[in-house]
């Protein structure tokens, strides 16, 4: 038995700094998991016409930002809160996670102007930011992503954009998974202090690009094989259903209050 085998190993690697790897992993993981969670259909979601929803959301946001009336801003805030309170708790949490930091950041950045006498303005702008962000968050959380791209087609967006949009969502998932495994590999293979990690990051981005080139070629081949020219047709004509009365009624109420509160 050689002597060195009998010694206890006493290697304690120095602590490594890899916060940036962790953060990259976290943000990419967040995006990928959101895409994957969207592909699961939930039957309990309200089946409103997505085009109608998108139009209502855009109307609400446009009116909020145009409005000079504090009352109108508060009214739309109450409306949004009511809509939000009808949702599942997980969904509420997801929307609030975006809304609250955005509002807090706005408030903090506007605070110096409040000291100079613009306090009402600060409150109004903060509420406006909160309400518009909540509107978009609610829309994106309650609408199937395929339906959103379909709704964009109703808004006469060119096919090229829709095709690219669809492909992008799919490939964020695929390339995101790829970059996650590369980042995990970088983390696992850095034993002790690894000063070369930053340099490896550009390698990861570079490999990601090369990989995406190859994937684009594969996708083109797949498109050719299936005779897909990039032209979309709406399979189901967008039908107006009785439940569409709700967004229409809400739009009417919003418009009424907007005009009544003196814009």
């Amino acid at each position, binding site marked *: 038995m050689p002597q060195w085998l009998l010694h206890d190993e006493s290697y304690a690697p120095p602590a490594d700094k890899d916060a940036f790897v962790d953060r990259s992993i976290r943000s990419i993981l967040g995006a990928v998991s959101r895409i994957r969670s969207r592909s699961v259909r939930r039957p309990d979601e309200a089946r409103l016409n997505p085009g109608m929803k998108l139009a209502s959301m855009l109307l609400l946001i446009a009116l909020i930002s145009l409005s000079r009336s504090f*009352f109108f801003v508060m009214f739309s805030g109450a409306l949004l809160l009511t809509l939000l309170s009808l949702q599942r*708790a997980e969904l509420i949490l997801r929307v609030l996670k975006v809304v609250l930091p955005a509002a807090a950041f706005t408030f903090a950045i506007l605070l110096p102007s409040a000291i100079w006498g613009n306090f009402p*303005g600060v409150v109004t702008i903060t509420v406006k930011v909160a309400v518009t962000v909540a509107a978009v968050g609610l829309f994106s959380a309650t609408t199937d992503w395929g339906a959103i791209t379909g709704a964009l087609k109703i808004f006469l967006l060119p096919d090229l954009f829709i095709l690219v949009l669809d492909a992008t969502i799919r490939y964020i998932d695929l390339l995101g998974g790829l970059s996650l495994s590369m980042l995990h590999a970088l983390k696992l293979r850095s034993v002790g202090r690894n000063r070369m990690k930053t340099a490896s990051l550009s390698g990861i981005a570079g490999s990601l690009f090369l990989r*995406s080139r190859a994937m*684009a070629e594969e996708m083109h081949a797949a498109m050719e094989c299936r005779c897909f020219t990039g032209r979309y047709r709406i399979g189901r004509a967008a039908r107006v259903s009785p439940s569409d009365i709700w967004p229409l009624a809400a739009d009417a109420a919003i418009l009424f209050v907007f005009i009544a509160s003196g814009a």
Partner: protein
Amino acid sequence: MGAAMVPVLAVAARKVTGEVSRERIPLLGIGAAFSFLIMMFNVPLPGGTTGHAVGGTLLAVVLGPWSACISVTIALLIQALLFGDGGILAFGANCFNMAFVIPFLGYFIYRFVKDRVKGERGEYAGLAAGSYIGLNMAALCAAMEFGIQPLLFRTAAGLPMYCPYPLSVSIPAMMIPHLAVAGVVEAIFTVAVVSFIRKASPGTIHEESSARVRPLYTLLAALICLSPLGLLAAGTAWGEWGAEEIGSVVSGGKALGFIPEGMRKGFGFQVLFPDYTVKGLPDFAGYIVSAAAGAAILVIAFKLIGLAKKTVVKTRERRSRLSR
């Protein structure tokens, strides 16, 4: 700003569909996915913090500026509309800054330096200069968009409606962090990634003949002349991106935590709380709205408490299962 972006995107779409073969269409989508992910890569900064690159110049160099324009636009649209990270009204402004100014200006500067300084050194100098200047010009555009707002949009009482800071505040607030930190990160990142791609797989990078640089010159000259005009025109027509834009800065994760003490005098004389009374609406309207809001807040609070309890129970169950 949205109005300013429509012709740009239309030209970009025509350029891509007309000139680019069908082969490149998938590349646009995948390029957009690539640019979306690039914005998520955190780069360590001195002092223990991290920042992220935008990668506009990088995309323009590896995919070509028109493709980069579409790719970044799509990446921003997904962030705003599908991920719900705000920024719907700021979308036009964001696109102008990040999908138009950065790729085109960055690419132009890159080509300009590369054509004049031969060899590898010229290429990398061009990349660094292009990405640094591109990002900072985009930041300057954003600062102008912020700073113009208090001039254009005021309430009846003379208070600014959206962003309350004038140009003298918004420009240093945006430019100092970008000049000092974000631009450097962008330049280092761009050079490192392009040099990696060149080494790992030469020939994959978008090559454009030098003859095609000339239209770029004219386009760029036009862009430089038009950008302040476009800002003003788009501002009066659209104007409503103010409130939203501030929210989108959060989702962009940009370093904007710097607020200089330079507030202008104009704010000093305003009365605290100008009258909130709403003409033409009865008093009870306010009560109803606040009651609805209060009830909704309660429901939300209870649902969240319920969710928290559910997760606690779940983790307990899991633990007890594990211990068995």
